[in-house]
């Protein structure tokens, strides 16, 4: 009988752990969950994904690495719509991402059936964070091999309850307070551990370091008063993906971008693909900016 | 005193296929009744090498004409949503929603038959299958009178099957169904099955000789169908607007829609 499982032997050789990395939900003596750390490694191999929270909307962008020349161009979209107002981009193991999106859609639908209104981005991030975290707790499952960026626009207008039939009283009992404004753009990033934070700009995947460096240069804090506009955000997002791609220049990629604007903006509060014209313009500018950098270096 | 006596003759109470409100003054209990009668009539006649199925196109609800064109005849099987190459026709009259549901189920099953067996279903097998569908739902029946028509694969003769709502069925030479069935059926009995027609000049009394029914030719049949419907339209308010007629031969299905009176 084989007493040594070759697979096990391989793992022990390549990992730091001495058996603590074999099971999910088990800590190593120094307080680490190796399976989660390996999941993060899986993410680090994926194409760069970023999200930018702008003054009047959110942009999601993805460096979609072309794994085969036989794949149809601009097909096989990777950024998913979860509800009308929310989109998700992820980097890492694609099927894990699919499952994540599917669960997010269920959460959004269940929220709607309970509250008769769209799920706020913060609540979705919270629920998905809890869901992802649960996959670090049990020995029969493995953590998600993705980091997901969730972008959403919570309507700034007075949102009707789904299926509402009238506009209600203008004033008086049950009336509306004039000028009250809520909602706005939201961006969250959820990691394999289930950890999630809200961000002004988020990046994950292979080129995340370069992308983060670029994101930090942008004016994204709304308190600064000069927070970039959605359209600028689209152009910056394209440029950042191109910058992040510099390290793996030999590989081909497609730029996939979606955006969510204010209800008064171009997408009317919906998560949609960036129109072809605008995306191509952003790509043109991105390439131009890169050439400019090259020249300066030379 | 006399006011309380029964004073309505049966003939003053015309009967309709939809409920009439009784001015009884008693409170009416509202409750959901899952059926309605959408009126209209269908008929089918089989010949030596063809079958004709026809139906009017009016759809009614009470005294209302819901639409002047709602087909009661459906091609079954064939390929694609337009049933290319189909050689079976189903007609349904009664509750239109059940009719559509029945049609869709039979069509799906006939198409599945082709996928599973690699050949078209025969008319008699299809007829049996339809009976099963109806019988399976006998405790909440499809409220329809169905007539199925095609061409017999064995001898090439016209095949016509008629059904009650719970699946009892029979192969016949002719059948009328629906609102004006009681008007059309006696006419068909006389003209197709030659009922009450005797050999001219034959002895009267018990010995007199019935004319023997023979398969009719296509022109005669189509003429009978037109006559049956134009007459039914005159006497039944739920029949009219258009006459949809399908002729099934070995070559396939020919469909015509002719105008009927819209009053």
């Amino acid at each position: 009988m084989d007493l040594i499982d070759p697979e096990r032997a391989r793992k022990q050789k390549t990992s730091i752990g001495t058996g603590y990395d074999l099971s999910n939900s088990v800590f190593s003596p120094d307080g680490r969950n190796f399976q989660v750390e390996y999941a993060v490694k899986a993410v680090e191999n994926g194409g760069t994904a970023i999200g930018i929270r702008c003054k009047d909307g959110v942009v999601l962008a993805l460096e979609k690495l072309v794994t085969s020349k036989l794949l149809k161009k601009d097909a096989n979209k990777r950024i998913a719509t979860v509800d009308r107002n929310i989109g998700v981009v992820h980097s890492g193991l694609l099927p894990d991402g699919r499952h994540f999106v599917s669960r997010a859609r269920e959460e959004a639908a269940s929220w709607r059936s309970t509250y008769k209104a769209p799920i706020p981005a913060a609540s979705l991030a919270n629920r998905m964070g809890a869901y992802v975290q649960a996959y670090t707790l049990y020995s029969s499952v493995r953590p998600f091999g993705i980091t997901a960026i969730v972008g959403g626009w919570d309507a700034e207008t007075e949102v009707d309850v789904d299926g509402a039939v009238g506009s209600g009283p203008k004033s008086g009992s049950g009336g509306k307070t004039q000028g009250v404004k809520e909602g706005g753009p939201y961006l969250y990033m959820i990691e394999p551990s289930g950890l999630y934070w809200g961000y002004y700009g988020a990046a994950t995947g292979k080129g995340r370091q370069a992308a983060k460096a670029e994101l930090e240069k942008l004016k994204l804090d709304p308190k600064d008063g000069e927070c970039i506009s959605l359209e600028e955000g689209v152009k910056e997002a394209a440029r950042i993906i191109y910058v992040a791609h510099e390290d793996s220049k030999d590989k081909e990629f497609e730029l996939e971008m979606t955006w969510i604007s204010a209800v008064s903006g171009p997408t009317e509060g919906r998560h949609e693909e960036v129109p072809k014209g605008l995306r191509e313009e952003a790509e043109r500018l991105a390439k131009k900016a890169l050439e400019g950098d090259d020249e300066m270096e030379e | 005193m006399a006011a309380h006596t029964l004073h309505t003759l049966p003939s003053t109470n015309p009967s309709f296929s939809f409920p009439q409100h009784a001015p009884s003054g008693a409170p009416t209990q509202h409750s959901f009744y899952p059926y309605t009668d959408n009126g209209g009539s269908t008929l089918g006649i089989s010949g030596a090498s063809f079958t004709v199925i026809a139906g009017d196109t009016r759809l009614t609800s009470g005294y209302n004409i819901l639409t002047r064109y709602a087909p009661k005849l459906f091609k079954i099987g064939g390929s694609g949503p337009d049933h290319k190459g189909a050689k079976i026709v189903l007609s349904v009259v009664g509750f239109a929603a059940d009719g559509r549901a029945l049609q869709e189920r039979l069509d799906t099953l006939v198409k599945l038959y082709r996928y599973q067996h690699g050949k078209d279903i025969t008319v008699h097998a299809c007829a049996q299958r339809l009976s099963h569908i109806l019988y399976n739902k006998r405790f909440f029946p499809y409220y329809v009178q169905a007539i199925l028509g095609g061409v017999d694969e064995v001898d090439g003769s016209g095949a016509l099957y008629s059904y009650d709502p719970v699946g009892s069925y029979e192969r016949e030479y002719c059948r009328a169904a629906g609102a004006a069935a009681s008007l059309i059926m006696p006419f068909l009995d006389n003209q197709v099955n030659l009922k009450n027609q005797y050999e001219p000049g034959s002895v009267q009394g018990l010995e007199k000789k019935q004319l023997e029914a023979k398969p009719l030719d296509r022109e005669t049949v189509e003429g009978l169908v037109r006559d049956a419907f134009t007459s039914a339209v005159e006497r039944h308010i739920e029949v009219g607007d258009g006459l949809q007629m399908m002729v099934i031969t070995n070559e396939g299905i020919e469909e015509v829609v002719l105008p009927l009176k819209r009053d």
Partner: protein
Amino acid sequence: MNHLPHAWGRPRDDVYGHYNPSYLPTSLGGTQHISSMPTSHTQSPIVTGTSVIAIKFKTGIVIAADNLASYGSLARFTDVKRLKPFNKKCVVGFGGDVSDMQYIDRLLMSLDVQQNYAGSAKEMDEEDGGSKALMGANNLHTYLSKVMYKRRSDFNPLWNALLVAGLDEKDAPFLASADLLGTTYSAPTLATGFGAHLAQPLLRNVVPDEKAVEGITREKAVETVRECMKVLFYRDARSMPEYSIAVIDGSGVELKTDEKLENQSWAFAETIRGYGTQTVPVFVEDQDQIRTLDEMREYLPEDGLSAAMDDHPFRTATDPGEFRDIYLAAAQAVERMPKPRQLEISFDLQVDAGMGQGEHEFSYAQGATESWYQESSVDSKVGWGMFPTVEMDDQVPKAWKKVGEVKGATIELYLSEQNEHYINYRLIH
């Protein structure tokens, strides 16, 4: 712990045994009946919307429904939008139970969300150069009719009559209906509820069959539907004069939700005689003594009624459209009279000084009429014109001009200020 997330955080079956749901109602897998009664579903609608009407035109559909939700005979909600746009090429009109309408609306919303999972239709639009990516009205109708039929088959109906209006996948106009029984049908004109009795005949007059659709313009279709909404308001006690109207064609959905009925007039009512169908004589232009509508209009002072009423202490309706109806009706009445005709026209004016319709106002106006009778009946030659004011005691006002000579009848015209919608005339003998 296992790989079934559903079980996480719940008592483990192997430790605690299978969950015992017996205390739950049957709908949740238990054995308890809420009130020892069998399950009961909707047996009748509660808050209801009345008719929905729609008509096809050459390139699209017009659909309308009023904004009322009734609770029995109570006009309960007066701001209820019963036309729901699904996407850029379909609108659903709802008659029947309002809560079921809201349920279906949510169902459609989730359907739309799911439709857009694969990417928004907007983007695909641009690439295909058409709206092929959008769900067509025919498919939406099929979906809804299956929902309705399923629910009726479960004895748990959605108590609605729906009209689905829009464009199909080939961008051809599509109009069809589905009701609580799952019955489906399509026609160039459709009307649910009371509209099936009142509006459908009027709509069919304009579009008798599918062939006639080609000859109908968008404007004609809108005009017809607006006219039908008016007729429905006249006769349907569960209706209101505010309504929604949507036009769907190649350029998208144009939905207006706060329309008001215009040019209401009861003038038509006087052309109705007895019960059943009767032919009412039509106004004939080529009569020596009778002037056409346009000719008669010449005799009106330019600024219409308001000029005549300016001196009057009480204001009244000023819409020329209403007067047109009066003249038309009067002319039709004259037409019916045997020759030689003698016509006396008196205008019976009801005015309102903010006190509501009362005896005082009525007799006051009547007095004016009587005084004018005396003058005008001298030679029985009367003209058409503005109705009199109190100052008309001694002579026919200048605004009145001779139009023709008609004998043997009196026409009274009623103008009610109480409700400017009611202008009427009456043929006395």
